[in-house]
């Protein structure tokens, strides 16, 4: 088995890299693929809490790379999904505890075992970023429709290309159709035009993401979550399926809307 290493990056912090990693990882296993999510944000690990796996950490990425701990010992198996694993970041070490070379070897190793290796990249463009991209075959750039985020995404795309990564796709996160409609938020076309990258998917702003993060259950587990639905569609694209882009003003069916209301009411 020879998998694919995909780094999820953005430059700017807080635009949804970790949420995207957690949701795509989970959604891909729901499609029957074997996935490992690697948190490379050493010192500020978060993928474990977003996944609800924070209590199961024994060893971390630094232990594997430098401490002689076997990969199998450090990988946390997510019991909710067949074939989903997490390699957590170290919380108390420096970003320099891992080198790009070590990261590359680690990715090579993981690729043998998994269909998808999703690398959650830290914010910024320093050592942590360089480490995270060093073993990647392709990249997903996450950006929100704001000037600062698109600017950083542009810089990141440039750095990815300079590092020899050719397949860099964009996920536009937290778009608000109503604001787009009234001309107060950049549209999908605007961002694609400016960044000149391929669009992988669009995720609407959705409160259910906060709810699911509170619970440590990725939004894709919630059948009625709009963001979850968007991530499930993106996962299918990553899995090689042709999935049409939904128009922004796509309104869910009345039945779904009703289901969602019921679900919210029952909470």
């Amino acid at each position, binding site marked *: 088995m020879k998998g694919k290493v995909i780094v999820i990056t953005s430059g700017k912090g807080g635009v949804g890299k970790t949420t995207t990693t957690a949701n795509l990882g989970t959604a891909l296993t729901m499609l029957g693929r074997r996935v490992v999510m690697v948190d490379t944000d050493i010192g500020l690990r978060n993928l474990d809490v977003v996944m609800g796996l924070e209590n199961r950490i024994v060893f971390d990425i630094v232990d594997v790379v430098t401490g002689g701990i076997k990969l199998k010992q450090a990988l946390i198996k997510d019991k909710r999904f067949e074939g989903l694993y997490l390699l957590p970041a170290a919380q108390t070490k420096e970003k320099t505890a891992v080198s790009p070379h070590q990261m590359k070897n680690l990715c090579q190793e993981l690729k043998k075992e998994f269909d998808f290796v999703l690398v959650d990249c830290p914010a910024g463009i320093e050592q942590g970023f360089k480490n995270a991209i060093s073993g990647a075959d392709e990249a997903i750039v996450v950006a929100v429709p*704001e*000037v600062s985020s*698109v*600017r950083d995404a*542009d*810089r990141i795309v*440039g750095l990815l290309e300079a590092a020899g990564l050719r397949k860099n796709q964009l996920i536009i996160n937290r778009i608000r159709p109503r604001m*787009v409609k*009234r*001309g*107060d*938020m*950049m*549209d999908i076309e*605007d961002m694609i035009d*400016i960044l000149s990258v391929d669009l992988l998917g669009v995720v609407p702003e959705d409160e259910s993401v906060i709810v699911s993060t509170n619970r440590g259950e990725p939004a894709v587990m919630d059948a009625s979550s709009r963001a979850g639905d968007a991530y499930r569609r993106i996962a299918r694209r990553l899995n090689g399926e042709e999935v049409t882009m939904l128009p922004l003003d796509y309104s869910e069916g009345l039945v779904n809307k009703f289901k969602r209301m019921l679900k919210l009411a029952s909470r």
Partner: protein
Amino acid sequence: MLDFLTRLIWRDKEKTGSKHVAKERLRLVLVHDRVSAAPQLLEALKEDLIRVIREYIEIDEDALDVSFNSIENTVALVANIPVLKIKKVIA
């Protein structure tokens, strides 16, 4: 009548919506970002410029200055090229 009015207001909003400001500002800032991220682009452009201009005009190559400037809502490529001598015109 009300419908007409709201449509008028709506259309006005479309034009003045803050996204246009965002796009304009982004466009300008990215020109500068991309140039500073790839200074070799300006250097290569400079060399090519010198090569072409030399055919017609004798210039002070060391004093030649090429840069991007934001003027109002556009980005301009500004070249300051001190001329030493115009070559003899061949009719």
